[in-house]
């Protein structure tokens, strides 16, 4: 293997026996021989590729395409039926967080157990202990038993250990979805940092945008073979196109497509400035919801919505107290007069947090004759860290909806400080007590 190659996968083949009704006990094996019928399914078929040192690669593909199997073969959890995997350096696989945690032992003791399972020696763990604890932000709790932790704290500790292993090759399977948005953002930047240090990273993820943000290369696995391999943007376009065709072929509904794809595709299409007609993904989103979250007379339709900061770059995650810009494009099927634009914020539980429209705010009603856009700027959003659904509407002045899209967009908020509650309330402290600068 050349010096600059970190992972070499050569002619890798993996087959699984799929049992129709597997008997494992003696009685079953003897009495019901024919019940042990199985078919051999080839999950990976003669796959070869090299990953260079310091490269960050995303593996994509629909459920069951073999991408997770590939990751497990690279990590050495599974053994191949044919071909080989060569790896230069130490591998750390983040496929499971908190492996070996014992609820009755303290966070500190569990760091030792968990890290030892990743193959670290005592000296190596001691050298990393402080950065693990710092990263987890569990300073005051680190000597309490893990069973007293909230699930968020538990995951934070687990992730902190995993991310601090310092491997040459890091394998990650769908685990960036841990903790609150705040911690996720932190994990994300840690991953960037690790990548900059020259660690080779392989990620399996459903979130294409996550892969685009971290990876330089994407490998699309389909039916056990590599379908495309290249820059994430190129591969993902091809992949989304393919998924879309598949879905249409399947009648638009039956294929299992995660909502993130739909949202992602909307954004992508918008970025590429594709035609402003109603795009199929949005129809799919509405259909997936049974159409009950979007209704109206339909003369004018919202075609895309982008949430962003002042810089106009689309994103989903906002810091509490910053300004959020929603830019809404609409397509005019039939010109209407006397229209009102509206926006509403909801918790995922359905609770309405705030809603307003141009009429309430004292703007004159609009005549919509051709496609256009409007922007609403929510100043210093006070919504504390959570996920929120944002709805948009175009309606007639008398309140008759033209296009009322209740679950149009989801945004997440995060916050740097640990204050709590549903809304951020601006405040100041005044006091007379003497200030103690030195806690020492």
């Amino acid at each position, binding site marked *: 293997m050349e010096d600059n190659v970190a992972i070499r996968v050569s002619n890798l083949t993996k087959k699984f026996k799929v049992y129709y009704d597997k008997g494992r006990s003696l009685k079953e094996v003897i009495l019901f021989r024919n019940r042990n019928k199985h078919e051999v399914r080839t999950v990976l078929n003669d796959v070869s590729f090299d990953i260079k040192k310091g490269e960050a690669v995303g593996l994509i593909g629909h459920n069951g395409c073999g991408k997770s199997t590939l990751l497990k073969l690279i990590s050495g959890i599974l053994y191949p039926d044919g071909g080989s995997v060569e790896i230069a350096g130490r591998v750390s696989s983040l496929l499971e967080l908190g*492996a070996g945690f014992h609820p009755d032992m303290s966070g500190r003791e569990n760091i030792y157990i968990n890290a030892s399972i990743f193959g670290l020696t*005592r000296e190596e763990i001691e050298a990393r202990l402080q950065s693990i604890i710092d990263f987890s932000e569990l300073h005051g709790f680190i000597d309490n038993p893990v069973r007293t932790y909230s699930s968020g704290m538990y995951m934070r500790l687990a992730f902190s250990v995993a991310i601090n292993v310092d491997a040459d090759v890091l394998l990650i399977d769908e685990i960036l979805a841990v903790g609150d948005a705040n911690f996720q953002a932190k994990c994300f930047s840690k991953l960037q940092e690790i990548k900059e240090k020259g660690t080779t990273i392989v990620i399996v993820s459903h979130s294409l945008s996550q892969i685009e943000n971290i990876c330089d290369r994407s490998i699309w696995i389909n039916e056990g073979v590599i379908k495309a391999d290249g820059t994430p943007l190129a591969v993902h376009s091809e992949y989304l196109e393919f998924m879309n065709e598949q879905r249409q072929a399947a009648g638009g509904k039956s294929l299992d497509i995660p909502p993130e794809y739909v949202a992602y595709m909307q954004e992508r299409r918008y970025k590429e400035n594709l035609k402003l007609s109603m795009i199929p993904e949005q129809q799919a989103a509405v259909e997936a919801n049974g159409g009950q979250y979007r209704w109206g007379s339909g003369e004018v339709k919202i075609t895309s919505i982008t949430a962003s900061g002042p810089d106009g770059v689309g994103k989903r995650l906002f810091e509490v107290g910053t300004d959020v810009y929603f830019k809404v494009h609409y397509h005019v099927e039939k010109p209407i007069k006397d229209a009102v634009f509206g926006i509403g914020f909801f918790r995922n539980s359905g609770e309405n947090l705030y809603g307003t429209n141009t009429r309430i705010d004292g703007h004159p009603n609009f005549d919509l004759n051709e496609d256009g856009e409007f922007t609403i700027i929510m100043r210093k959003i006070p919504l504390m860290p959570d996920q929120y659904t944002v709805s948009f509407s175009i309606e007639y002045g008398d309140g008759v909806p033209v296009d009322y899209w209740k679950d149009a967009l989801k945004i997440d908020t995060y916050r740097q400080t640990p204050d709590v509650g549903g809304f951020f309330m601006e405040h100041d402290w005044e006091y007379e007590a003497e200030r103690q600068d030195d806690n020492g």
Partner: protein
Amino acid sequence: MNKIKEIYEYRLMVYSLVKRDLRGKYKGSVLGFMWTFVNPLLQLLVYNMVFSIIMKAGVEKFYLYLFVGLIPWLFFSAAITGGSTCIIAQKDLIKKIRFPREIIPISFVTSQFVNMLLSFIVVILVSLVSGVHLTVGGILCLPVIMLVEYLMALGIALISSSLTVYFRDLEHILAILAMAWLYATPICYPEEMVPEKYLSIYRLNPVTPIVNAYRDVLYWGRTPDLTTLLLAVGIGLVTIFAGVLIFGRLQRRFAEEL
């Protein structure tokens, strides 16, 4: 050789798992870790009542005779029966994380072994109180006997744990086998009680030389017979070798089968 190096690199994992196991075992009980000592003493009491009062075996200081054989046996039996399920019990680890799979049976047997070592503190005390004259040679032999038994137990646990993954009945079969094995070993009775004509088969039992060696030191107060000891060492090495080979072969499909 590579395997041994890899396992050595993961030594902290063995240590952590053993510690976790021992700590977790008596969690929440009033006596806590004291159970490690109380448990063998109570067992001794029961066996002593049964065999000295009801079923007289006709052996002097029978409680000690029994105790010296029983404690190593309990370790051995735990390694067989518990060892068979140790891989299945840790399937979440095996399916999700890469580490030398041997670590799991090694940790399991080691934690049982540590339990036995602690019980041996009680055994040696009882032996001294009973007036057994412990020889220096005998005491020096003890660690060797223990090591040999450890290797044998580990070998068997490696085999049984990997086979049980593919064939779950083994767990129950081994439980019965362990019970039968207890009576095929001179633990509750002296070897002399076995009828002459069965003796050639009886002697095939690989645990017998180990039990006899323990007894030489802690009951008879003499240095174990060299042939007994060498036989035990031989058996121990063969078992561990077979265990490593079989386990190495079978572990490749663990993640799929579990």
